[in-house]
């Protein structure tokens, strides 16, 4: 099966937002704060307007005087503004923007805008931000009425920089610690990192003569962006169109509004379509992955049974909440790891700091918590003299296990993932061994559980045309994960027609039915099912037409191999249409919708409609002279429910694992007093083909889920999460040192070894 987007992509004809042209298009550029925290005392763009080629300049004056604009927005709290209104809160915070005929004019115009700040003390990290008397990033956080259902009741703590404090209490941890035979405590940390999608953010905004807003954007969430734009510009949702072309990678960096509100405001002022394309350094200033410090205290029995676990997660959410509150909540919920533990206490805090905002990143907070939990699991196993794999298997969630929310887990292939990943790297042959040249090898394993955004909605439509071909309408955005093809193939399979007869229209809110988001590894399950249901609805309608037109009981109409059959008659779809309409014409639309809820039955809550479980196992080779490590072998095992497209599964597993390696070994966005130090790809290091091990194994475990299409669940994020702790565990196996802070650099290993030798 050739993927529908492949031919265009290998030929270079696939269109991304930066490739789009439009009559009258002009260029937008953003003026950004050079300080981390300050009051904006003056913004004067008159100088900009004097530059030849400049069409318009946008400042807070335009926003505050125009009653038609509510400049504040944000997916959870309305703490972001189109451009700074009273304060700037991070280096890079937009302060003004210009639209011009060419980029030169735009850049020159930016230099002519006068901005004056009253610089304020800043909170550079979570430690600063939580100090009593710390500078407040937001004096008061604006709330968003009628926001996401799963975040109702999530509130910032007034007078502090605590954006969200998520609390989970399950059992009684103090009791649990009293019952424990050994107690382990440790703190783990991860730095700020970045998604670094190869395609930078970009957006084209136009306002039509009647006031209709049209936006083409590299966004994973056209519908949420549409809603936010409608709220900001105070128009009905039906007068806003947001369309997403192919994305050059998302990984969570392109969910929720980024450039769109500013681009629309600028287009309004310019009275022309405006295109804003970020430069690479601007991307680093726009959205990041939460840095975190996680303190874990675990009580166990001597035989390795987990009794109690207490976690405190501090997530650095940057200057704006973005989706940070949900990250805190979702990662907090699974923070204790995929284990049956009678007593769990989690406090997950998203804390404001004066740095660029952190938001959704592939793994959504779970790679942070898994770094801590899975590292500590190995430390505990070693202290007790138990095999780390055995200890995990002993405590792992199983079918029917009770989760920390009280719900029962189903479709959980965790043990299978652990066993198969371990077997793939020869876990049974484990023994620290010296190899030639004095290098040491070791093996490590890690596992995880993560949920998917619940409640949520996905709807799909299938339109049958007069020649029997199908158009599939879906809000799922193709960002490389292969959704376009997967969804089309589900439709093709259900209808018994060749894939080539299905055309996909995706990501255009004017045309497709509602979809909450392309993220959270949710599209196969939710949208795939919606497509299945739409196909069945289409067949039901065709069946009714046949019944009417041929006088046959509807129950006797059957569908197989792309044809409609009853009695001795076989009809093509287009023949049914012709019979109904008397000509080549007419439309039949099948619709399907998947809606998930958190409250499944009175008193019975469900935090996630399905759970992802997976494991990663790695063999590393450490050079004790330098601390350098090489990945010899890696196996990712993920319970996908059903591998509808095996090649697609493999791509997601190894692809996510490779990003996990970068996050584990190389990546760190460093700041110096709030200023990013390495906001470029020379100094922010991404994994390359040269860093790859000889082989990587992608193992798909299939424990079907009753509600997924063909039993499928989600795939995209799982394999990223266990990589870092598996590597840290392998390093400990190889050379006996424990690294608790990412990235896991050669230097850290080297000095840990030096300290260990000195102690001995």
């Amino acid at each position, binding site marked *: 099966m050739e993927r529908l987007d492949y031919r265009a992509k290998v030929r270079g004809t696939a269109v991304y937002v930066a490739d789009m042209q439009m009559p009258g298009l002009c260029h937008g550029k953003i003026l950004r704060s050079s300080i981390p925290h300050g009051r904006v005392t003056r913004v004067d763009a008159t100088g900009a307007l004097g530059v030849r080629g400049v069409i318009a300049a946008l400042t807070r004056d335009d926003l505050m005087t125009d009653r038609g604009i509510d400049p504040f927005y944000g997916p959870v709290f309305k703490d972001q503004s189109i451009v700074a209104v009273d304060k700037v809160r991070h280096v890079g915070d937009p302060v003004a923007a210009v639209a011009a005929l060419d980029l030169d004019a735009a850049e020159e115009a930016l230099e002519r805008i006068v901005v004056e700040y009253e610089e304020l003390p800043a909170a550079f990290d979570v430690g600063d931000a939580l100090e009593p008397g710390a500078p407040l990033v937001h004096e008061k956080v604006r709330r968003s009425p009628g926001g996401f259902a799963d975040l109702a009741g999530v509130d910032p703590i007034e007078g502090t920089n605590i954006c969200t404090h998520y609390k989970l209490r399950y059992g009684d941890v103090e009791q649990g610690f009293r019952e424990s035979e050994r107690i382990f405590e440790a703190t783990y940390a991860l730095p700020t990192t970045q998604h670094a999608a190869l395609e930078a953010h970009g957006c084209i905004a136009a306002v039509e003569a009647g006031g209709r807003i049209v936006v083409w954007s590299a966004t994973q969430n056209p519908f949420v962006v549409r809603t936010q734009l409608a709220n900001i510009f105070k128009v009905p949702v039906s007068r806003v169109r947001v369309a997403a072309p192919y994305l050059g990678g998302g990984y969570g960096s392109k969910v929720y509004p980024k450039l769109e509100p500013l681009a629309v405001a600028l287009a309004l002022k310019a009275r022309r379509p405006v295109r804003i394309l970020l430069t690479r350094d601007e991307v680093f200033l726009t959205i990041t992955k939460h840095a975190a410090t996680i303190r874990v205290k675990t009580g166990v029995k001597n035989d390795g049974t987990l009794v109690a676990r207490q976690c405190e997660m501090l997530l650095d959410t940057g200057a704006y909440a973005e989706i940070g509150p949900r990250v805190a909540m979702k990662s907090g919920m699974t923070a204790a790891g995929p284990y049956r533990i009678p007593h769990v206490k989690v406090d997950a805090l998203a804390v404001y700091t004066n740095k660029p905002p952190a938001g959704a990143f592939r793994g959504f907070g779970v790679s942070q918590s898994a770094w801590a939990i899975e590292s500590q699991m190995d430390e505990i196993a070693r202290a007790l003299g138990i095999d780390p794999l055995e200890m995990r298997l002993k405590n792992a969630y199983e079918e029917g296990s009770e989760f920390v929310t009280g719900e029962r887990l189903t479709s959980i292939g965790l043990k299978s993932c652990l066993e198969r990943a371990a077997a793939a790297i020869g876990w049974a042959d484990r023994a620290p061994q010296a190899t030639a040249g004095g290098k040491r090898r070791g093996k490590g394993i890690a596992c995880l559980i993560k949920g998917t955004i619940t409640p949520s909605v996905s709807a799909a439509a299938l339109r049958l045309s007069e020649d029997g071909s199908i158009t599939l309408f879906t809000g799922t955005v193709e960002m490389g994960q292969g959704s376009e093809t997967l969804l089309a193939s589900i439709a093709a399979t259900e209808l018994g027609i060749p894939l080539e007869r299905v055309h996909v229209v995706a990501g255009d809110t004017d045309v497709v039915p509602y979809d909450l988001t392309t993220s959270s590894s949710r599209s196969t399950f939710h949208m795939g099912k919606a497509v299945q249901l739409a196909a069945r609805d289409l067949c039901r309608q065709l069946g009714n037409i046949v019944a009417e037109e041929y006088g046959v009981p509807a129950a006797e109409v059957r569908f197989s191999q792309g044809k409609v059959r009853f009695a001795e008659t076989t009809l093509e779809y287009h023949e049914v249409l012709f019979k109904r309409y008397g000509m080549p014409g007419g439309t039949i639309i099948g619709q399907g919708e998947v809606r998930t809820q958190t409250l499944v039955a009175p008193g019975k809550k469900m935090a996630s409609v399905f759970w992802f479980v997976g494991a990663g196992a790695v063999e590393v080779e450490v050079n004790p*002279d*330098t601390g350098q490590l090489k990945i010899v072998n890696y196996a990712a095992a993920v319970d996908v429910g059903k591998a509808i497209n095996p090649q697609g599964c493999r791509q997601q597993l190894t692809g996510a694992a490779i990003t996990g390696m970068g996050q584990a*070994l*190389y990546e*760190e966005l*460093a700041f110096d007093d709030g200023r990013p*130090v*390495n906001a*470029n790809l*020379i*100094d922010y*290091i*991404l*994994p*390359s083909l*040269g*860093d790859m091990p000889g082989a990587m194994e992608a193992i798909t475990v299939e424990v079907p889920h009753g509600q997924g299409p063909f039993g499928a669940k989600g795939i995209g994020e799982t394999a990223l999460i266990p990589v870092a702790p598996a590597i840290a565990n392998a390093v400990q196996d190889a050379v006996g040192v424990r690294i608790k802070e990412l*990235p896991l*650099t*050669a*230097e850290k290993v*080297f*000095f840990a070894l030096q300290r260990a030798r000195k102690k001995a």
Partner: protein
Amino acid sequence: MRNFEYHEPETLGEACLLLKGYGAAARVFAGGTHLTVLMKQGLVRPGALINLKKIPGLKGIVWHPGKGLTIGTLVTHHELETSSLVQRVWPFLSRVAREVGNIRVRTMGTVGGNLASGEPLTDLPCALLSLGSVVSVMGPSGGRSIALEDFFVDYYETVLAEDEILTEVVVPPLPPRTGFEYIRFTAGSVMDRPSVGVSARLSLEPQGLACREVRVSLGCVSSTPMRARDAERALEGQDWGPDALEDAAASAARECSPLDDLRGSARYKREMVRVLVRDALSMAHERANTGGKEP
């Protein structure tokens, strides 16, 4: 990038005069792999670029047993790597050239541009330094030769005057029983810039264990690529042996002045200098000892 004036002189004399005329406002342009990065980051804003690539005579690679290897300033890293001449007489140099940057930097970037940039985190200067290289420089009033060890002044700064152009690098012939090794150490990804570079060239006496000539050069760990002279003295004139080797390695670690940065702390880099000087000298010695014609 801001716009600039652009010239393609057809002789060295013309180029030097242009440079002299512009003063500090003009920059020499060869491969552009270094210069464009500085221009895009706003670190330099040249009023003019003087493209050397129309000037004949700057692209040769010539070997003469008496003189050594002469590399024209406009030879690219990729040309150096794939030159059948270099692969035949000094394959170790080809091995260094193929590690520089990435394939696109290697096809566009030039040996002369690399040296003239004074870029600290790079490979060729360190390797060429241990080979006793000499560069030829042309200015409006004539030419001069400069030993590479006297060529670098500071981060991104060489002795080149505003109106001078580096024209060629000469690597003198090596005595028999010479071994060479260059180690490029990266903090993380193999594609990252090096954080430590170590080059060792060891020539043994015609017979026996004694080290006649030792060159140890270090890259990335000082304001310029440098000779680790104490390290050299620890071995030169001595018999090869583990104690002298350790001495040399420890000396080298003391002599350099690395910085704390994203690619490592100064302390770590010093430790790596010690490890890598030991490894590089050992490998150079092994190659010298096999007595082959080429190191």
